[in-house]
């Protein structure tokens, strides 16, 4: 079995586990039981492990970072979502994020599996740790913003249930985390996203300077760069507002809107507009 085939097989295994985890998380939200919850966590964790192994096999097949194209980066994004879900769950002993994050991880993994990587010699510029850090940190920031979006949706749902009298005390809404926790966790996710995006962009700029030199800054005109900088400014502004006492409902709404911006940047901008970030 070639490394490319192994990557596909491992990816398929991860996908199956993500499907299982999603089903179990939703079931656990509707009809909670200790075993359903535990099985959901185990499926998500094993899925993340297989996802990581698939990325590694893909890296071997491509002889490069495994996520320099759209589908590879989707696989990485799926991995980050599943891994963050498990980490947050173990940290806070709360499974309410699973029904929101795992379907997203599942969709990304499903799309990523549509292709089989074809081994080809990578361009020398895509080798090296600076480029790898640039892409990895940017993807991690997107995953953190996805978590902030999921937490914000939960905040809006929980708040809505509380406004409707007893609805917050019965049914699935009663199993959501507290508003105070959701608000705090959203701010933390925002902070992680802003810091990693800033670091990822810095590594990107550094890498571009090294490749093209200071005299050639045309890469700075690439739409993806501008969209990424705008995303950073937008999220940094939300974070500053949230930390200085903005209404949590407004922060939650902005986080949901911000994630739509990321999805557009990740898909439409990468596929249709940009040249330098067009997923070679």
């Amino acid at each position, binding site marked *: 079995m070639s490394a490319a085939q192994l990557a596909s097989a491992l990816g398929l295994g991860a996908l199956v586990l993500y499907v299982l985890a999603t089903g179990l998380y939703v079931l656990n939200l509707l009809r909670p039981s200790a075993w359903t919850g535990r099985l959901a966590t185990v499926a998500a964790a094993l899925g993340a492990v297989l996802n990581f192994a698939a990325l590694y096999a893909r890296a071997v097949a491509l002889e490069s970072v495994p996520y320099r194209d759209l589908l590879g980066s989707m696989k990485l994004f799926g991995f980050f979502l599943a891994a963050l879900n498990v980490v947050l769950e173990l940290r806070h002993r709360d499974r309410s994020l699973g029904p929101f994050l795992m379907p997203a991880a599942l969709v990304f993994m499903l799309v990523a599996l549509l292709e089989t990587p074809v081994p080809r010699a990578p361009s020398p510029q895509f080798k090296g740790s600076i480029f790898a850090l640039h892409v990895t940190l940017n993807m991690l920031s997107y995953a953190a913003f996805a978590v902030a979006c999921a937490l914000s949706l939960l905040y809006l749902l*929980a*708040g809505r249930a*509380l*406004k409707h*009298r*007893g609805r*917050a*005390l*019965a049914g699935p809404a*009663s199993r959501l985390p*507290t*508003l*105070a*926790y959701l*608000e705090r966790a959203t701010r933390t996710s925002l902070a992680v996203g802003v810091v990693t995006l800033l670091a990822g962009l810095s590594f990107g700029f550094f890498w571009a300077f090294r490749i093209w030199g200071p005299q050639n800054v045309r890469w700075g005109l690439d739409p993806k760069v501008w969209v990424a900088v705008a995303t950073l400014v937008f999220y940094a502004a939300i974070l500053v507002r949230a930390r*200085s*006492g*903005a*209404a*949590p*409902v*407004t922060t939650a709404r902005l986080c949901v809107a911000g994630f739509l911006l990321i999805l557009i940047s990740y898909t439409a901008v990468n596929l249709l507009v940009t040249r330098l970030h067009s997923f070679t």
Partner: protein
Amino acid sequence: MNLLFIGWNHRATPVEVRERIAFTPEKAREALKHLFAERILTEGAIVATCNRSEIYGLSEREDAADAVATFLSSFHQVDGGVLRQTAVSGGGEETVRHLFRVASGLDSMVLGEAQILGQVREAYRLATETGAARVVTNRLFQSALECGKRVRNETTLGARPTSVPGIALLLVGRVFEELEGRRVLVVGAGETAELTAQLLVENGATDLRVCNRSEGRAAALAAAIGGRAVPWESLVTAAAESDLILSATGAPEPVITAKALAEARHRSRRRGPLLILDLAVPRDVEPAVDELSDVYRYDVDALNEVAAENAAARRAEVPKAEAIVEETVVKFRDWFGGLHHVDVVKALRGKLEGIRRQEVEAYRGKIAGLGPDAEKVVERLTDSIVSKILHHPTVGLKEGNASERLERADAVRALFRLDPPEKP
């Protein structure tokens, strides 16, 4: 032999009688000792809560329930006629079902209340401690506790609170992970404000402020609950800076308006979720604050509405809980029925006879080689051994009082593994 219960509870007995026959742990121990000494019961336990005093036990007397009532009449110095008139009693399976329903919260004044399971556990502990719990009481109470636990785990009978303070605390728990460090503003200094504030303190509230028109009363309540008083003029500012507002004044008009709160929150840097529990009638907080983002207001009507919804949800769970009770009753009945000495002797004989036949069959070839009559002799010999082995257990199972007989029967069933293995 009679498995019985007799009790006085909130359904049939007025509180004036219930309070006179209430049992403290010491009184329950003493009563149990007397009930055995006077041979009214051979074993048993007393379940004592604020709503019930019930005696469960095994007796050899046909008039055991009446004898217990007579005893309690002199023990508690209460008129025997009144006790007999207001008692609830039953025998056999009724006893089992009644205790299982009690342990499950199905017989409680507040349907599905949680404390009763602990009280049944306490009754069992006390009976074990005094030596009053023997084989039947052990199995009866262990089954009752198992039944109560199953009802709690497999139904939502007790999951949703039905009292206003319980709902208020649950709401607090939906907004904040813990009350410690959360700023709580108590508006008003009357009894309702004080009792609810105390409840919040018991549940971890540490940062409390009290605001009342009369500063003296505010200071007194603040001192009582470990908070600090806030001048009435600063009410809205204090409200905007709080995480939780508990309001219960006697004001005829709202003391916190939506406009004032919105402006104060705009000025304040504290913008997290604000939960308002307005326990006053007329309401202290203008309903229009519902329009403000991150503000969650619950007035008395809303809390009562939730209480009614929760009570209805509990009632809907009753059939499920009753099914669990019936399942446990059947299990107990099967066990208890198997302790009848005729059944035990029959089962024991069957078991030994089976072993005898098996062994004779295994050696049949060798026995045949010993001569033409050997087979008959071996049959007679082994049959006689089995009968002799069975003689003492058969006699022993009929000796002693009811509890002693049942203890032996239970031991024989367990030692000789006379029961089929339980299905998982």
